[in-house]
C-alpha cells in the first residue's frame, strides 16, 4: 500500500517536472524602477512578451537602488538570484567582478542587438578590461546637473551655478533659514545620491580613485579639498542629513538650487499638470499653499561644474544577465532582452520617464516615434535640449573611467557605499576631513584586496 502510494506520487512528480520543462521556462527580472506607474509599464511590456512567447514566464521584482547590493548579496548566499538585473552600470560592473554575471551571454546579446548601434561611451563603461567582453548591456542613461531658479538668479544678478565660487555665492545669497528658505540641496545621508553629487565635485577638482596605472589615489589633496567644500556647502542646505526627496522643497519654492538627474524634467512637467488642478479654486484649503505654475519655465539647469577642470556626471542603467547553470534560463533571459531592445518596446520603456531615460542606441535617439512622447514632455523642453542631454551621456565622467579606461574595482567600491559613509562622517559625525578621506581609502584598499 505504502509503496504503491509512493510510486504514484513519484510518477506524478516526474510528469509535473516534464510538463514544466516542456511548458514554461520561468525567469525573474529585478529592476530598480520602484515607482508604481513604472512597474505597471514594465509589467505591460513583460505581459506582451509572454503573450508572444508562451513558453516563458517572467516575474518582475522591484528593488530600491540602495538595497540592490544587499539584496544581491543575500540572494547569492541563498542561491535565489534573479536571471536579469536592471540597475546602474557601476553596480553591474561590481556584480560582474563578483562572478555573478554571465559576460559571454551579455557580449553575445550586444552583437545580437548590434554593436554599432550602441553609443561607444555607454558601451565602454561595460567592457571588461581583461577579457574585452561586456559585463552587461547599456540600456538607458541620465545626466546630473544643478537645477535652479533662473528667475531668482536673474533678479539677484547672480551668475549661473557652474563653478564652485558661483555655487557657493548663490547658496549663501538665497539661504535664509529664519524665513524657512534654503540655498541648495546636496546629498549627505549615507546613500547613492550623496555619492553621485559628491563625485561631480570631486572630479571637477581633478580628484580620482585610480590613476591611469590603476593605483588607488583617493587620499589626495584634490579629494580633501572637494570634501571640505562639500561639508561647508551643507551649511546652506535644509537642516539635517538630506537626500533627493528634499527636491520637494524646491517645488514648494523654498530652495534655490538642487542637484538632480534629468528625471526631474518629467516630475516638473507633471507637477505643472498637477498644479493646474491643485488651485484654491478647486481646493479651498490650499489657499495658503504656494505653487509656482510657471516653475518649469523658471527652472534652468547646469550640467557641467568647473573648478580645476570641467566635470559632467551621469549614470548609465544596464541590463545584466545572471550566470546560471541552466542554459534554458539564460536563453529565455536573452529572448526577453531581444524583445526589450526592439524599437517599439524600447521606446515604450524610455517613455516612462522622458528626459530621465535616454536611449543608448543611436538610431533610437534619432527616431521620430521616440521624440513624440505621449505626454508631450519633449515638446515642452524642445528637441535641442533632449539631444543635448543624449550627447551629454557620451561625455559623463565617473570614478570608474579614467582616460576612457574602465577600472572595475571602482564599481565594487561604489557597491560598498564607502564614499556616502565618508560624507556622512565628515558632515554629521564631526570627523575631520583628513581622517574621513584616509578612512575611506583604507576601506577601499580592503575592497580591492579581497
Amino acid at each position, binding site marked *: 500500500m505504502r509503496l504503491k502510494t509512493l510510486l504514484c506520487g513519484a510518477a506524478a512528480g516526474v510528469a509535473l517536472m516534464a510538463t514544466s520543462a516542456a511548458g514554461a521556462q520561468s525567469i525573474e527580472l529585478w529592476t530598480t524602477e520602484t515607482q508604481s506607474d513604472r512597474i505597471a509599464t514594465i509589467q505591460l511590456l513583460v505581459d506582451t512578451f509572454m503573450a508572444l512567447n508562451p513558453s516563458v514566464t517572467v516575474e518582475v521584482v522591484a528593488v530600491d537602488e540602495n538595497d540592490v*547590493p*544587499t539584496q544581491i548579496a543575500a540572494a547569492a*548566499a541563498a542561491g535565489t538570484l534573479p536571471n536579469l538585473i536592471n540597475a546602474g552600470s557601476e553596480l553591474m560592473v561590481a556584480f560582474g567582478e563578483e562572478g555573478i554575471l554571465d559576460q559571454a551571454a551579455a557580449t553575445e546579446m550586444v552583437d545580437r542587438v548590434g554593436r554599432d548601434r550602441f553609443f561607444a561611451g555607454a558601451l565602454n563603461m561595460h567592457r571588461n578590461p581583461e577579457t574585452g567582453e561586456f559585463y552587461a548591456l547599456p540600456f538607458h542613461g541620465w545626466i546630473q546637473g544643478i537645477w535652479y531658479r533662473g528667475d531668482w538668479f536673474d533678479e539677484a544678478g547672480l551668475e549661473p551655478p557652474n563653478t564652485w565660487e558661483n555655487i557657493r555665492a548663490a547658496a549663501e545669497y538665497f539661504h535664509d*533659514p529664519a524665513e524657512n528658505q534654503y540655498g541648495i540641496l546636496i546629498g549627505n545621508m549615507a546613500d547613492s545620491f550623496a555619492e553621485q553629487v559628491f563625485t561631480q565635485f570631486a572630479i571637477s577638482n581633478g580628484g580620482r580613485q585610480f590613476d591611469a596605472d590603476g593605483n588607488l589615489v583617493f587620499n589626495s589633496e584634490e579629494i580633501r579639498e572637494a570634501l571640505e567644500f562639500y561639508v561647508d556647502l551643507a551649511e546652506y542646505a*535644509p537642516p*539635517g*542629513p*538630506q537626500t533627493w526627496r528634499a527636491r520637494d522643497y524646491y517645488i514648494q519654492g523654498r530652495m534655490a538650487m538642487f542637484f538632480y538627474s534629468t528625471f526631474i524634467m518629467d516630475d516638473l512637467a507633471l507637477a505643472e499638470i498637477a498644479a493646474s488642478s491643485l488651485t484654491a479654486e478647486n481646493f479651498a484649503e490650499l489657499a495658503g499653499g504656494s505653487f509656482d505654475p510657471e516653475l518649469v519655465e523658471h527652472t534652468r539647469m547646469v550640467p557641467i561644474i568647473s573648478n580645476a577642470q570641467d566635470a559632467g556626471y551621469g549614470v548609465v542603467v544596464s541590463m545584466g544577465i545572471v550566470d546560471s547553470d541552466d542554459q534554458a534560463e539564460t536563453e529565455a533571459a536573452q529572448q526577453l532582452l531581444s524583445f526589450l531592445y526592439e524599437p517599439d518596446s524600447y521606446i515604450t520603456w524610455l517613455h516612462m520617464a522622458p528626459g530621465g531615460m535616454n536611449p543608448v542606441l543611436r538610431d533610437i535617439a534619432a527616431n521620430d516615434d521616440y521624440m513624440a512622447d505621449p505626454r508631450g514632455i519633449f515638446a515642452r523642453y524642445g528637441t535641442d535640449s533632449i539631444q543635448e542631454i543624449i550627447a551629454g551621456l557620451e561625455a559623463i565622467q565617473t570614478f570608474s573611467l579614467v582616460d576612457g579606461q574602465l577600472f572595475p574595482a571602482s564599481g565594487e567600491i561604489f557597491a560598498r557605499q564607502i564614499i556616502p559613509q565618508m560624507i556622512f562622517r565628515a558632515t*554629521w559625525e564631526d570627523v575631520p576631513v583628513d581622517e574621513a578621506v584616509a578612512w575611506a581609502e583604507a576601506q577601499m584598499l580592503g575592497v580591492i584586496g579581497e
Partner: protein
Amino acid sequence: MKPQTVLERAENRFGWQLVAPSLGVIGLLILYPILYNVYLSFFDVQLVGDNVFVGLENYQRLLTDSAFYDSLTTTAIYLLGTVAGTTLLGLGAALLLNQDFPGRNVVRGLILLPYFAPVISVVFGWQFIFDPVNGVYNYMVVEVFNLTDERMNVIRDPDLGVIVVIVFDIWKHFPIAYLLILSKLQSINTDLYEAAAIDGHGPWGRFWHVTLPELYFVLGTIVILRFIWNLNKFEEVFLLAPNVQTLPIFTYYTAFTGVIDQGLAASVSVIQFVLLCGLIWFYVKKVLKW
C-alpha cells in the same frame, strides 16, 4: 535506578515519538540558526567562494571598534528610556482608568489605538511631523512658541534621533503595559484597601503598601518583556530613524552594507544574544525570584 519494565520502556519510547516532531521543528527553526550564527562568527564570510576560518579575530576587531561601543551606548539609552517610559506611562494610565468616570470604556478602548496601528503608516506620519521644513514640530517650536530660531532635523540627526525613537516606542507600546497592569489592578481584593485604610494609610500609603506589592510581578513581567523585545527591535528604529544605530541596526549595516562583513555581523549577534541571556538570567533569579 530501578530497571524499567517492558511497558515503561514502550511508554517512554512512545513519549519521545510524540515530542519528536516538535523537537525537530525547534531544532531546525531555532537551534540551527543560533548555532550556525555562532559558527559564522568565527569565519571571514565570503559571499562567493569558501569561508575562511579566522578564530576569534571578529571578536577582537569588534572589541576594539569604537562604532561598536557607540552602538552599545545608544542601545543602553534606548532600552532605559523605552522600558522605563512604557512601564511608567502604562502604570499611570492604568491607575487613572481604574477610577470610575463617565465614558471610561470608550477611553479604555481608544488608548489601545497606537498599539494596533501598523508600524509603517505610523512611521511615515511621525516622519512628516518632524520634517525640518514642512513638519508641525518645527512649526510649533520655531514659529508658534519661538523656543528656538533654528529649525532642526531631529529625526535624522545621529544624536537627537534616539530621543524621537524612544518617544515613539513609548507612545506605541505603553498600551500593552497599561493593559496588563489594568487587568491586575481589577483583580486586587478591595478588602486589602479597607484593611490598609483601617491601619491609617492614606491614598499614597495604600498605593505603596497594597497596589505596588500586588503589581510587583506584573511590572516585573512587563519590564522583562519590553527589555527582550526592544533589545531585538529592528523595524521601528530602522524605518523611523535609520541613523540611530542600536545593536540590531548596527548588525544590519555590518552584514549588508558597505564592506559587507557577515562574519563580523554574526559576532555582533552572538554578543547581543549572550548579553540578553545574561540579563534575563539575572533578572529572573533576582527580580522575579522564580
